[in-house]
């Protein structure tokens, strides 16, 4: 068994047996409960004025379903970010400061294997978490509206890939920053991604090319945002006309199609983040 696999197994057990996992589970169930309640209420209460009717060419049920799915995507990305940060924020410096790392690092496995094992475990937990919660939210929306996303798998995978990018960033931060500082920085990067998304919405609304360019670069610098937008876009890929335009202007509407180039860039970004983390870890005095 390779060193990275052993560390990944250890980190997986740690993820599942630490109290934080129970807290995340509880909060997720709470979120899903509220989400189910809110979704049901939205369709119940809005039925009287828009849902089920067509206002001109507007598919009102599709519009509300897309908005609720967008809300779900946003919440899942946030929860996945919280999970990724908690799993990795102290992986190197934090654990070294607490004395957890030294007994492991002096073993023959090597620091790069150690880092890759931690990454693999955290990424696996986040991907499974995102896919499960995403499936649950789409099921809840389907139960309330009878609608599925235009593509089911794509948005979930894009969101999962976004969470992997956040894991890589948080792990990179853990090499150079203390646990608290790393947590703050990672959440600030997440916030910066959100701001980039809002800028994109504003740019689309007012037709500003400069703002659009800035938002584009932000989403490339923080590819979890670009992946999130690609996921949102895939949710409503088949919506056209007035409904499609309205969804684009909605609170979770600003979205751009992904594609192989974005996937490649995200993969390269994660690889680069891990390479820099491995380089920094190899040169760290513990």
């Amino acid at each position: 068994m390779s060193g990275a696999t052993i560390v990944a197994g250890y980190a997986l057990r740690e993820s599942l047996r630490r109290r934080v996992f129970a807290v995340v589970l509880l909060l997720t169930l709470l979120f899903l409960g509220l989400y189910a309640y809110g979704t049901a209420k939205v369709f119940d209460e809005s039925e009287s004025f828009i849902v089920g009717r067509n206002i001109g060419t507007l598919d009102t049920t599709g519009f509300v379903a897309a908005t609720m799915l967008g809300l779900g995507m946003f919440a899942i990305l946030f929860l996945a970010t919280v999970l990724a940060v908690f799993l990795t924020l102290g992986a190197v410096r934090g654990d070294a400061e607490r004395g957890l790392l030294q007994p492991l690092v002096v073993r023959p496995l090597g620091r790069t294997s150690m880092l890759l094992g931690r990454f693999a475990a955290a990424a696996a937990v986040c991907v499974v978490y995102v896919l499960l919660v995403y499936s649950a939210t789409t099921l809840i929306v389907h139960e309330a509206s009878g609608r599925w996303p235009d593509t089911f798998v794509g948005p979930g995978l894009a969101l999962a890939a976004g969470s992997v990018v956040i894991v890589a960033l948080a792990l990179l931060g853990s090499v150079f920053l203390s646990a608290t500082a790393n947590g703050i920085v990672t959440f600030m990067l997440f916030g910066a991604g959100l701001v980039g998304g809002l800028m994109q919405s504003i740019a689309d609304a007012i037709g500003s090319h400069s703002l659009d360019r800035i938002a584009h670069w932000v989403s490339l610098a923080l590819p979890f945002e670009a992946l999130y937008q690609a996921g949102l876009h895939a949710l409503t890929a088949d919506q056209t006309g007035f409904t499609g335009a309205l969804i684009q202007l909605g609170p979770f509407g600003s979205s751009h199609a992904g594609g192989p180039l974005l996937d490649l860039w995200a993969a390269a970004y994660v690889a680069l983040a891990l390479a820099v983390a491995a380089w920094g870890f190899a040169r760290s005095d513990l």
Partner: protein
Amino acid sequence: MTPALSVAALHKRYGRTTALHDVDLDVAPGELVGLLGPNGAGKSTLVKIACGLVRASGGRAEVCGAPAGSREARRALGYLAELFRFPGWARAEEVLALHQRLAGSDGGAAERAELLTLVDLHDARDRRVEAMSKGMQQRLGIAQALVGSPRLLLLDEPTSALDPVGRRMVRGLLERLRERGVAVLLNSHLLSEVELICDRVAILAGGRVVAAGRPSELVHAGGVEVETATGVRRFEQATRAQVPELVAGLVRNGEQIYGVRILTSSLEEAYLDAVGGRQEDPAHGTARAEGAA
């Protein structure tokens, strides 16, 4: 024979601070060497360089002939850090099983049982680390360091959280390891402990080795004390070899002799001399009896 640990002209700087300055030290297989020194002397840095946690700025450090920090070197050593922790959620058995996998040990359950028995934790094998006392965790740390039968054991303050019974257990364990040919570098502030079990001692101060040798070589002769009918008489310049002549002279002069003690300084005094702290210790000044007649 290849030394278990060989350090030559070892140098380490942290920014502008020099932690180690041209340190030379060898530990032979089966040898128990004590590393002494005040806080900040560079002891932990030396141990950390040996086990690859810290990179040297210059010089050479080898573990069983392999460069310190290399995979081969790490395969040959066991390490207990001064400040260490195991995950609170893990059970004692799980901690050892993880380290067995990481060390490539095929000892399995038999090795784990032997190690837990060795440190008197067999009954606590299923106990979570978070439910253990500090002393128990330290004993688990020692068991962890012994996973995979290392040829060199680097112990940084291994008894700091142990009670006297635990310390005695560790002393016995180190002596057994020495008999098996395991080399031990023991970093400790407990001079009496080091004096009791170590074959050699190296004293570090300001990042330099300021004294080294067998404990008996480091202590100084302190004279001879003779208990007579008229009281205790002290002959500060007398040596062990002069005792028969000294006693004969006193008897010739009509003295009645009830006891003779050969005095030496303690390792603590030798240590204080070496690190320049002798004047700072108000309790200093008592010589110790090596033997009594």
